[in-house]
């Protein structure tokens, strides 16, 4: 064996180890840097208290709640639409119309996030403010609508892929027995593809949770526990973006590492669940 053949595997493996090491390093860093606050037994307090630096309270509960509200609402908005669009492409309009829609959705993945935020600020925020006359128009709803648009291509393309994986012999079999498209969907496609749908849903939730800009620009960033979708809220990501400017030694600043660790762990959990449901598919 030549030297090249011997070195190559080491190089390839080295690259993988590097990637893995840095990935784990990120978590390590988040945890390590939040240790100073955690050691003083404040973890529980930080996770459950309200945020009011003027009064010495540095809880991120409102941000955790805000993250969940916004991500969940954006799923509630975009899940049915994504499902409908993937039905459109895979079941009801497989022809030219479906292919055009697919191209369009692929194109959507190329639209930068900041565009959604920018247009949201100048188009959607005034609209929401005037329509509901409640608050500044920067609200959970506003952010969730734009976020819904942002994550729908992820979901649609994932759903389509899992619909496509349903073996053709099954769909042909039910077709030949006289199933309508609705019956085909209900009895064969969805039962076969649901782990894929679930995986797509989880991944989209992670994407919605991890997005910074849309929430930062559209949700108003207030620090109360939201009670209605028209309230302003702050996500963990936006919290990090805002507090990064604070004094490095302050407790305030250190809570952003707790926020980072929480975000990391939540998306990590999502990925873990997605992989499990994905494995069930095979």
């Amino acid at each position, binding site marked *: 064996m030549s030297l090249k053949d011997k070195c190559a595997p080491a190089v390839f493996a080295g690259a993988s180890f590097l990637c893995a090491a840095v990935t784990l390093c990120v978590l390590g860093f988040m945890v390590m840097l939040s240790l100073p606050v955690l050691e003083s037994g404040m973890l529980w307090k930080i996770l459950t208290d309200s945020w009011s630096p003027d009064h010495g309270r540095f809880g991120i509960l409102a941000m955790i709640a805000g993250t969940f509200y916004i991500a969940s609402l954006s799923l509630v908005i975009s899940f049915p639409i994504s499902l409908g669009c993937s039905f459109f492409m895979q079941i009801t309009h497989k022809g030219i119309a479906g292919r055009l829609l697919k191209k369009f959705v692929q194109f959507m993945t190329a639209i930068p996030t900041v565009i959604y935020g920018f247009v949201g600020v100048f188009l959607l925020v005034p609209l929401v403010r005037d329509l509901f006359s409640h608050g500044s128009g920067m609200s959970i709803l506003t952010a969730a609508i734009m976020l819904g648009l942002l994550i729908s291509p992820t979901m649609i393309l994932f759903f389509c892929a899992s619909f496509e994986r349903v073996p053709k012999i099954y769909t042909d079999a*039910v077709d*030949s027995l006289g199933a309508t498209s609705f019956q085909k969907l209900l009895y064969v496609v969805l039962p076969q593809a649901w782990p894929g749908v679930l995986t797509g849903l989880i991944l989209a939730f992670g994407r919605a949770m991890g997005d910074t800009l849309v929430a930062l620009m559209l949700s108003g960033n207030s620090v109360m526990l939201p009670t209605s979708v028209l309230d302003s809220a702050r996500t963990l990501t936006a919290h990090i973006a805002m507090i990064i400017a604070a004094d490095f030694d302050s407790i305030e600043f250190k809570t952003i590492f707790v926020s980072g660790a929480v975000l990391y762990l939540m998306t990590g959990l999502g990925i873990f669940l997605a992989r499990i449901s994905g494995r069930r598919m095979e």
Partner: protein
Amino acid sequence: MQNPIKIKIRHLYFYYKTRTILENINIDIHANTITSITGPSGQGKSSFLTILNRLCHNMDGARVDGQVTIDFGNGFEDIFQKNYALPELRKRVGMVFQAPNPLPVSIYKNVTFPLKLAGKKNKDSIREKVKNALEHAFLWDEVKDRLSDDARLLSGGQQQRLCLARSLVLDPQVLLLDEPTSSLDETSVQVIEELLARLKNRCTIIMVSHYMDQVKRVADQQFILRDRQLKPG
């Protein structure tokens, strides 16, 4: 051949993308007869069958031209019409595929599946129908104790008979069979052939087969598919 005509095929062309598979087919098929189609591999026999229940439209790049009309009792209907109700058509024109295609559910559910699609709900009559269909396909004795097993655990030959039973349960007027005995042993072949002879009274059968002696035994009318043409054999 004194029976009335059931299926009229006129100027039928079939293409995959730019490739012509069938060219100007013109034949009649009479009610309550068995028509056999033989021919070399890859000539388009299976494709021909899928035209008759319009399943060919599920294939990428497939295109038909011409006219196929079938008399389901109310005069000849053009099955290529736009908006023709495909589910209805496929309930009346049953099909058994070349490769057995049980659904990934239990044996029982496989057989009742068409009934579910048709919206039949009466439990007792359903059980009756399942038993009948499985008996017809000579599968009842082998599976009656394991109806809740996954159908994919059956052997190839059993699967083939299961699919036959499944398409019998709706009492189709036309039955399309693609090499229905290819993975069966000799005794099973014999019973299936007897079944076909009896089924003739209830429906019109079109069957693809590779075995010339089988064809001679059961078919009323023979075609050979070669060079994009169906020639009487």
